[in-house]
């Protein structure tokens, strides 16, 4: 009974966020147009293998879609005071945070699906594996939304959240095998690459769409994404609890 009430509250918190923040033009453009523009820029510089860029493009779309609003939403609501309404409600702190994260993850999932459907019009993927693709998209969305949530609780001001989000996002684009294969990077940089969740997101998506390109077992990528999500969620709860006093 208590669990059912908690789950319902999580659902309503995420639904409210999706309606209020996510499906708004600025957020959609940041979630879709920016990754597309980046992919197009790389394609124009090196116009071979656009199909090979699709998993990376999807990973980037999830990253930007999930974090663009998630990384600021809690900071923003704490500044306005409305976050307190959620804390006053009969929901655990963990539940409130999960509601926020699920909202961002859902948006990341939907925009990546839109990019995927568009990609399917232009390219064929003979090794397309839907059974692997769906958990890859879901776990990537959760991992990046949790990263956004962590950023959002770790800072006090919205501009700090945006700065910190970019500090994570932009290096990840270049270090996670989106455009440049990790194997071609210097060894110390490769170590950093394997510490970044986008690496595992791109690996699992590559496994789902272009299995012959993958250098990493799909199950391992999914497991690592799940571990990233859990650790970041746990850290977010702890940081938020400490901040609230």
């Amino acid at each position, binding site marked *: 009974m*208590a669990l059912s*009430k*908690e789950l*319902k*509250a999580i659902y*309503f*918190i995420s639904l*409210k966020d999706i309606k*209020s923040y996510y499906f708004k033009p600025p957020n959609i453009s940041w979630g879709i147009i920016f990754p597309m523009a980046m992919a197009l820029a790389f394609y124009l510089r090196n116009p071979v293998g656009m199909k090979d860029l699709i998993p990376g493009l999807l990973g980037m779309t999830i990253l930007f879609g999930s974090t663009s609003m998630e990384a600021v939403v809690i900071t923003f609501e704490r500044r*306005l*005071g*409305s976050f*307190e*309404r*959620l*804390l*006053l*409600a*009969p*929901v*655990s702190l963990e539940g409130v945070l999960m509601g926020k994260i699920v909202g961002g993850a859902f948006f990341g999932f939907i925009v990546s699906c839109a990019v995927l459907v568009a990609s399917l019009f232009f390219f064929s993927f003979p090794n397309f594996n839907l059974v692997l693709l769906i958990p890859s998209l879901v776990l990537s969305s959760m991992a990046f939304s949790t990263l956004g949530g962590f950023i959002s609780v770790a800072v006090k001001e919205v501009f700090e959240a945006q700065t910190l989000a970019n500090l994570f996002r932009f290096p990840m684009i270049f270090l996670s095998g989106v455009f440049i294969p990790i194997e071609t990077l210097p060894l110390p940089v490769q170590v950093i690459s394997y510490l970044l969740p986008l690496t595992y997101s791109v690996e699992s998506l590559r496994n789902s769409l272009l299995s012959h390109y993958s250098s990493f077992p799909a199950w391992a990528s999914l497991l690592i994404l799940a571990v990233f999500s859990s650790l970041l969620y746990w850290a977010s709860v702890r940081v938020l609890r400490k901040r*609230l*006093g």
Partner: protein
Amino acid sequence: MESNLALDVENLTKYYNGFLAVDHIRFQVKSGEVFGFLGPNGAGKTTTIRMLCGLLTPSEGRASVMGFDIQKETVESKRQIGVVPEISNLYEELTSFENLVFMGQLYGVPKNQRKKRSEELIQLVRLEAKRDIPFSGLSKGMKRSLTIAAALVHDPPLIFLDEPTSGLDVGSARNLRTMIRQLNGRGTTIFLTTHNIEEANHLCHRIAVLVKGKIIAVDTPEALKKSVQGKSMVEFGMENPNLPDLLDSIKAFDSVDTVNRRQDHFVIGFKGGPPWGSFLLYLQERGVSVTSINTLQPTLEDAFVKITGLDREMMMIEKEGKKG
């Protein structure tokens, strides 16, 4: 714990980085009471309310809300309360109606009752014309009313009101007080924090006075007033109240206990009965013409000043600061 207690607080304490904000306070609130928490700014009122609402973790002590421990049964204790924080903090982008429906969702109001309940509350706070206006578009008084409506959405047995009329115009404040009385008339227990002594006097069955994190008195307003009845308060109107050193001269008179200036009047507290003849002669010798004399009953403010030891002038400054 007695079964008719809405709140039972024992040794509740809060430290902020070593600063003792709330110091081992202990009190009980009976179901159906309007309980006032009165104290100057920074006394620890809001910290106390935030601990009781589950927003802050107490450093020491315990409290229960309608029998539910605020730390061990936090979610269930939150379900028992409605909270109106000092700052009206509903969602700016949602309309009045959407805000109430969202609160209903969070508090588990059944789907088939949520919209009906929201409509009823909008009528209760007289915001029918603003039903579909975003919260950001409402006036301060309307925001306050809607925040109260949001606290009532799940029909809680206990409501916390933190400085409910602070910053409101006279009309809005009066409407709000009427609403508080109506709610209490329906059996809802009210926990009211305020620095407005008259508000507490008119609304509360019992009042706790909090100073520097400590409760220094808990009683009915009448009993608190009686605590200063040993003193006679007299208001003197004077033709020339700006004479130099007048205040000090009055204070120097033997049986004068307290002196406060209110515009052209002086409110003077005498130890025992006022020695009319000698005091009027004393004033006359100093060139003061008395134009009116009124004997005053002790007010809750007098009691508050006596209990807290706060200077009246400081209280006025605090009140002005709060309004600003």
